[in-house]
């Protein structure tokens, strides 16, 4: 079969033009498209927040699962496909420093009045980065067949040589904003002065046999007894126990833990900002917060009364949880996040 050169060139030119024929309009107005992590969290967002909001407001609301919502916004480079994202507070602060999310006044977020100011995330100009929505606390998760809660009455127990090769720690991406910050606080420093936390992090890292790469990874390791303990998220353990895995538990050492708060933000350049803002304000409704607490996400808002059964499951009242856990200034942490991550990587290298 003979292929004429002109036919080949014509065909190639047609193929190159084809993408432009399919250029479509971006997301239509009048919708909320939210980026969320997958798994149980996304399911909770659909059932607890998105569906009721759509029913009440008539605004079509979609929850799209992505590996990391803040990474999705960073990758979009000002052309976001989502107009709402859920992010850890330090991630939102990082996006704000890079100019990728909107900022707001208190007038834009009237529902904020129910949330104590210590949980508000502000940028350098004093503007708000979004709606703080809920939190989990950072404690020490452990396998109950290999250890007891009293073994971890203090965070310093993680450095005890008896736990050598029995601890797991998270990746530097989270170790830097969470563990290093907490250890700094425990040793006389704070979110700005992290050096006091370095020796403690090195001590804990020396006992670590693994660096877990996902929630699921550590859930498996703890459940199977491959590791004895790890700094971890309260909500994850609560759901694991609810799902029948009663061998794992979490304890809050006497020094307290860390408030890992999450925030709803609106990416810059997103469509339908009004609908997104309406969604942000609607998510603080008490009944939705109680429902989220059933999935392990504790309310930051003070106008929410948790059922007694839920507080019994937590092992303490919400007032105790808030009192015993520290909420750092995440914007300060995000200021030099890359340097902190590199520092943590060096600490891990030294510990090996």
């Amino acid at each position: 079969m003979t292929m004429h050169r002109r036919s080949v060139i014509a065909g190639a030119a047609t193929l190159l033009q084809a993408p432009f024929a399919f250029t479509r309009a971006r997301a239509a107005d009048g919708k909320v498209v939210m980026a969320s992590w997958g798994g149980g969290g996304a399911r909770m967002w659909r059932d607890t927040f998105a569906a009721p909001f759509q029913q009440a407001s008539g605004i079509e609301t979609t929850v799209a699962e992505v590996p990391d919502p803040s990474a999705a916004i960073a990758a979009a480079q000002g052309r976001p496909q989502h107009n709402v994202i859920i992010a850890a507070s330090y991630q939102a602060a990082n996006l704000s420093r890079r100019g990728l999310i909107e900022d707001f006044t208190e007038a834009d977020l009237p529902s904020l009045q129910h949330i104590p100011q210590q949980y508000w995330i502000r940028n350098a100009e004093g503007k708000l980065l979004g709606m703080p929505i809920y939190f989990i606390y950072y404690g020490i998760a452990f396998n109950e067949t290999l250890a007891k809660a009293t073994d971890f009455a203090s965070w310093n127990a993680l450095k005890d040589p008896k736990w050598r090769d029995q601890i797991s720690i998270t990746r530097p991406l989270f170790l830097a904003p969470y563990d290093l910050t907490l250890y700094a606080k425990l040793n006389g420093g704070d979110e700005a002065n992290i050096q006091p936390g370095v020796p403690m992090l090195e001590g804990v890292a020396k006992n670590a046999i693994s660096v877990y790469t996902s929630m699921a990874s550590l859930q498996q390791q703890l459940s199977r007894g491959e590791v004895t303990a790890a700094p971890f998220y309260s909500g994850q353990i609560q759901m694991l126990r609810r799902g029948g895995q009663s061998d794992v538990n979490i304890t809050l050492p006497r020094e307290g833990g860390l408030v890992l708060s999450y925030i709803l933000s609106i990416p810059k350049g997103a469509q339908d900002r009004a609908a997104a803002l309406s969604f942000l304000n609607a998510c603080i409704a008490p009944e939705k917060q109680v429902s989220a607490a059933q999935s392990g996400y504790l309310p930051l808002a003070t106008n929410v009364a948790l059922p007694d059964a839920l507080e019994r499951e937590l092992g303490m009242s919400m007032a105790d949880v808030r009192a015993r856990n520290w909420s750092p200034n995440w914007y300060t942490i995000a200021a030099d996040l890359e340097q902190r991550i590199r520092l943590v990587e060096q600490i891990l290298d030294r510990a090996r």
Partner: protein
Amino acid sequence: MGLSPATRIIAILLLILLPAPLIIVIGASFSPRAVLAFPPPGFSWRWYLEFLGSPAWLAAFGQSAIIAVVAAVVTTVIAVLAALALDRAPARLRSAAETAILAPLLFPHAAIGIAFLGWLSMLELNGGFIGVLMAHLILCAPFAYRPVAVSLRQIDRSLTEAATILGAEPRQALTRVVLPLLRPGIAASLLFSFIISFDEVTVTMFLIGPEFTTLPVSIYTHIHDSADPVVAAISSVLILLTAGLVLLIDRLVGLRIFIDIEEEGRQAPA
């Protein structure tokens, strides 16, 4: 010639070890608890019901299947056209073209994903079916082209010449002699392209959107947060579907078509 006892033992061990991961995945999918465990501590259909009752999971599965079928067909058509065009091309041109076609094998998929993200974002095609399809076409091209090109080179040229001498027009020689003899290569191209596209996650992760995602990306997103056995249930369903597909292909066209490239190339069509 009989097998030695050592060879028999190795063969038996392989027959036991090779399907072991499948058995473990299928077993773990029936666990009633929220973590993967084998042997499972009980029996439950819970995770199958979760998968089959979830519009999100089913949509991702359907979108993956559609992308894979379209990518397989389109890349195979392009591969056949390319192989035919390059078969008689000068060696230098063929070598350069084949290098370009096989180039996606040389680059890390993360780099390809970032490149596609930038390009598709510029065209406002990111996050949809067309963008993901375009990426899959590029990724599947090497796996589609190779079996077709190899199959084409093994066809005896005298068969085409004989057809021409006996009065067949070039189009008839192509459709009635060459393409039937290319069947093994085309079948292999379709199969490999389908598998590559269906399993693709690294590049696709950069290109999904709120209204479009694929099953492998959904699985990856899910296991970041949950270690529950729904992923094992999904894998078991895919194993079952694959086994069914293999039996169907064997019934319709025979599995020899995938391995007998040389023999098919030497035989004239009926």
